[in-house]
């Protein structure tokens, strides 16, 4: 345990150096996730003809869309994870054996590698935060400070669901040739059910019910809803509890998938 604690600062340092070295790649990644901004255009064009009513009785005008999608963009940057592709690549190339040799759990290494990108991502999203604060969307942000605390906790929860889902799908590549296609399906479902393309509030009621029982909404939709002041505090806490339940389930599930899978690993080539 003490050895592990001593290793973590070094891992952070190495990871951060790597993150800075591949900053161009990260910028490309950020540019590739501008979908919420495009959806923002679509919805403001729709709202121009008149506010959009939802089934729950809220009316969405262009200001609320601005707040929603700018926050969605920021949240996506902060929760994103790409471990599934990395694991797939390393399993296929056999380079995973390098990780297995080290006296630290590989999942912890992936975790550190993801976290070190957060400062860089925060720098990239900072201008968007400023734009948000001076945009018509600012009026539609949550006002109560306590809800912002719940928001922070929900960001951590969303990140956990996303990261451990990545590990779980990545670990499937031990048993099948490649789990990249499963990741494709996961992302397609994420797009529809997370509130990434449209606020889930605008879904018909039965689809909203479906989304409430799937993990995707808790990755991205919940933090965004909290920041845009949709939920009262008790409601927010109840939703947070659900989110963390999902996070715990993914944590346990992905670690056991990893343990079962890694036994089947045979390094190929170099």
């Amino acid at each position, binding site marked *: 345990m003490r050895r592990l604690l001593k290793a973590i600062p070094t891992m952070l340092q190495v990871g951060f150096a790597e993150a800075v070295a*591949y900053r*161009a*790649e990260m910028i*490309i*990644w950020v*540019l*590739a*996730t*501008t*979908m919420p901004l*495009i*959806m923002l*255009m*679509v*919805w403001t*064009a*729709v709202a*121009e*003809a*008149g506010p*959009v*009513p939802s089934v729950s009785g809220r009316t969405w005008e262009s200001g609320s869309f601005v707040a929603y999608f700018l926050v969605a963009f920021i949240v996506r940057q902060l929760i994103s994870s790409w471990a599934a592709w990395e694991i797939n690549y390393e399993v296929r190339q056999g380079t995973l054996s390098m990780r297995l040799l080290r006296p630290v759990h590989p999942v912890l290494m992936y975790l550190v590698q993801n976290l070190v990108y957060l400062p860089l991502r925060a720098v990239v999203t900072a201008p968007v935060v400023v734009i948000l604060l001076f945009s018509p969307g600012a009026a539609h942000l949550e006002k109560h400070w306590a809800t912002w605390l719940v928001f922070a906790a929900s960001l951590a929860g969303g990140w956990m669901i996303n990261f451990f889902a990545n590990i779980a799908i990545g670990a499937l590549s031990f048993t099948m040739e490649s789990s990249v*296609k499963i990741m*494709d*399906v996961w992302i*397609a*479902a994420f*797009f*529809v059910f997370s509130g990434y*393309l*449209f606020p889930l509030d*605008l*879904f*018909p009621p039965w689809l909203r019910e479906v989304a409430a029982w799937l993990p995707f909404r808790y990755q991205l939709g919940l933090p965004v809803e909290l920041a845009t002041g949709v939920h009262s505090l008790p409601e927010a806490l109840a939703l947070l509890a659900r989110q963390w339940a999902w996070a715990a389930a993914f944590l346990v599930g992905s670690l056991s998938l990893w343990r079962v899978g890694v036994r089947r690993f045979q390094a190929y080539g170099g």
Partner: protein
Amino acid sequence: MTRYLRLLGLQVRTSALLAAQYRWDFLVDGVISIFWAATAVVPLFVVYGDASRPGIPGWGFGEALVVTGWFILLQGLLDGAINPGLQAVVEHIRKGTLDFVLLKPADAQFLVSTARFQVWRVFSVANALVILALAFQRIGRAPSPLGVLMALVLLVVATWILYSLWILIVSAAFFVVKVDNLTYLFSSIFDAGRWPSAVFRGALRFVFTFVIPLAVMTTFPAEALLGRLAPRALVGAVLGSLVFAAIARGVWLKSIGRYTSAGG
């Protein structure tokens, strides 16, 4: 010329044989393509929702669905014929194996462009045709023969532009080598093409018409099918695509001159 046609036939056959080897992929790709088509259509349902929602100004539900259908068609082309080659070149440049391509006695751009096809992506084309059929059923009339002809011309134009953009991206790989996710970037920018270009305003509208001509690729053909595209726009699109192709070819030749191979 006939030599290049023969080469193309050969490359396509290799890809087809390779695809036939992974028959399971046929099923998996089929399911995934239906899934992706659904994700392209669902937002449209949410935007138009029930009758109480105004939708995108100037575009009815059926008309917007035509744009989405055309988008899925092009996405199939992109994923099936254009992206696989891009990934292959990036890999070649990183490993230095592009030397072997350059040594062959045929045009390098031609060879890398036709090196790999994902044959099973024909699924997306089928999906697109179904969506287009549904859209026109919803609108209640069939497209005119002239409209179909114009749309087909624009399909060629769009493929040409997509291909040129692709060559430009590959050229970037000569300068910054670690660009594995360039394809991802390209597809996600292309994603904006699923919406009628009427939703984009100001600078972005300019960018999506002239710099990354998404409007030309999906909105124009949809308008042609709906019978409301001005012939002038068609001529502009054709000329524009020629300019694009010329620029792409120039940049490709310049960057390949800078290629210095890599060890091992």
